[in-house]
């Protein structure tokens, strides 16, 4: 059993400890940054949407990782909630994109620039 420097009092199973917590942190940070860059650089609404989902799941991953390393199920419950809400959000978001497509015949967000001075 490898001592956990961050959580000295909690016993974490070996199976989990095979991959250190730091890896999860790095992975989810990478996912999140990819998501941000995607949102900032892409113009296709669907890709932006996917990037947003990526960011959302990066956060989910982080929550689960901490939850496991602390042996605290609250984080996992939280993730389930986020997934349910995300599903609803996807339904609404995709519906909006479909409507945008019907009106402008493409999904380029650059076309939606009517709300400026």
């Amino acid at each position, binding site marked *: 059993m490898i001592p956990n420097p961050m959580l000295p009092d909690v016993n974490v199973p070996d199976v989990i400890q095979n991959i250190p917590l730091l890896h999860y942190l790095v992975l989810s940070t990478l996912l999140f940054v990819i998501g941000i860059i995607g949102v*900032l650089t892409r113009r296709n609404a669907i890709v932006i949407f996917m990037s947003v989902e990526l960011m959302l799941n990066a956060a989910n991953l982080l929550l689960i990782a901490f939850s496991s390393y602390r042996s605290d199920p609250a984080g996992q419950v939280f993730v389930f909630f986020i997934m349910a809400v995300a599903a609803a959000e996807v339904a609404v978001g995709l519906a909006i994109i479909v409507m945008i497509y019907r009106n402008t015949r493409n999904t380029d*967000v*650059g076309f939606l*620039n009517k*709300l*400026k*001075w």
Partner: protein
Amino acid sequence: MSPSLLVLIPLLPLIGFLVNGLGFTRIPKSLVGIIGTLAVLGSFVLSLLTFNAFLASGSQPLIVPLFDWITVGSLNIPFSFQVDQLSLLMLLIITGVGSLIHIYSIGYMHHDPGFGKFFAYLNLFLFFMLLLVLGSNYVVMFIGWEGVGLCSYLLIGFWNKNTNYNNAARKAFIMNRVGDLGFLLGIFTIITTFGSVEYLEVFSKASEFSIGDPVIIAITAFLFIGAMGKSAQIPLYTWLPDAMAGPTPVSALIHAATMVTAGIYMVIRSNVLYSLAPSTLEIVGIIGAATALFAASIGLLQNDIKKVLAYSTVSQLGYMFMGLGAMAYSASMFHVITHAFFKALLFLGAGSVIHAMSDEQDIRSMGGLRKKLPVTFITFFIATWAISGLPPFSGFFSKDEILAHVFEHNKLLWVIGVFGSVMTSFYMFRLLFLTFFGTFRGTHEQEHHLHESPASMTIPLIILAVLSAVGGAIGVPEALHGSHHLAEFMSPLYDAARQVNPAAFLPTTLSHSEEYLLMGISVAAAAISAIVAYVMYVQKASVPAPDSEEKSALQNLIYNKYYVDELYDNVFVKPTKTLSNAFYSFGEFFVDLFVNGAARLIRFLASLLRKTQTGSTGDYVFAMVLGIVVILFWKLLL
């Protein structure tokens, strides 16, 4: 008498107003008149039932509480009705004369495009008037007081395409506001003095005050200012003659029979307070007498048929206040009743004449209408006879009773009163002779068009003529071997006043022979001036000169109503206008400077900030990410 039935009395006209007012574009014309008239007739029938029930239950005053209205601290103002002798008499006059005038209006207003609007306003007026007389406290009376003022305004300016008419309406409204301010101050003083506005409570507490107490004098004086405005007394009378701009039935109902008597009603209602303030009553009497004489003298030379009647109304109201000044409350009420009959009749008769003359109102263009309009002529004649105070018609009894009381009280006022009645008789007979006698002086077209009015107009005339003729029977003086039913009926109203000021209610000291003498003098004076009018306008057939002709200075003075309107215009209206213009330009400059300056500053800042709104989604997302990063760093690192 169940309370719910009593509530219906004012409610029926309100329902009529709502139905006609909301739906007059959809309801057919024939139905509008029927709805409006039925609403009032219903009220009249209910008033009669209430009257009978009141007599049957032994003439006990009845308070009908409807709901608690205002409760502030220790002051509680309920919304309740009071049924007693005074409110019942007013109810009967208002709904009775009101019904007749509604029926008349169906014929008179038939060709008017605003037929439905007219009936809606008339019904609304009746609602407020009934509220005024039914309320059991000064605040409910005040609602009615303001409401009738509003309806008066709406109906004077009924033909609102004419600017002069609108100005007349505004004049009436503003002058009434001056009086209303006095009335309000009176109510406030009552609240601070007695802690209540309920009549019964105020009057029972007032009996603890001594005669001539300054507080009571202040209250009565304030209330009287209100009465001056509403009942067109000097100095607030000039709106009433101008109010003739409204349709003639309105003049008959509002500006002769009912609304303008609200001031008299209010004084009689507050008789306890007034009996405690003899000095206020002195003022009331003097103002009444002055108005009676002043208005009558203006009436002498007017040539507009409705203007003559308007000044006559002002003058008759003056008589009523003169009677109040002599604490002859019942006599004044008697005159209110008979005046409602004969003055409504005169106005409706004048309306019938105007209707026949194709909207001509100048008596110089009339003449000889007797044969073409027989019913109108006979009824008008009866009314003229009555208002002149000639026996045996109603005006004789009521006016002589007032004059007898005034004689007892103050001989000088009596002389003024008799002098006024000489003038009344002269201008009324002048009007009658110029309109109905001699030869026709109008255009050929008008002569061709002359016709008697339809039955819906003549029947109210006939009913009112009968009432004007026999109405005096309710108050035949003892000297003429009659019994004064009205005075007996109203006597319980003064019980409280009798206790606080017994000296004022002593039985008359005039002997029968003195009374005969007084009657003889006033009748003879009225008869002589009627004869003078006959000689001038029938035998010599003289016609008042056209406006273009030169007149003597005195004639000019009277013809132009003593230039009172011009005086008010110069003293009050023009300075006010100048002042408000000055304030207006001040506001234009400084206020606009600030307001516009603030607006320009904001617009400038906005023009800088709105550059951030690029419209590109990417920029917004970038701003959002940037914002999140900043917040994170701020929260985590700082």
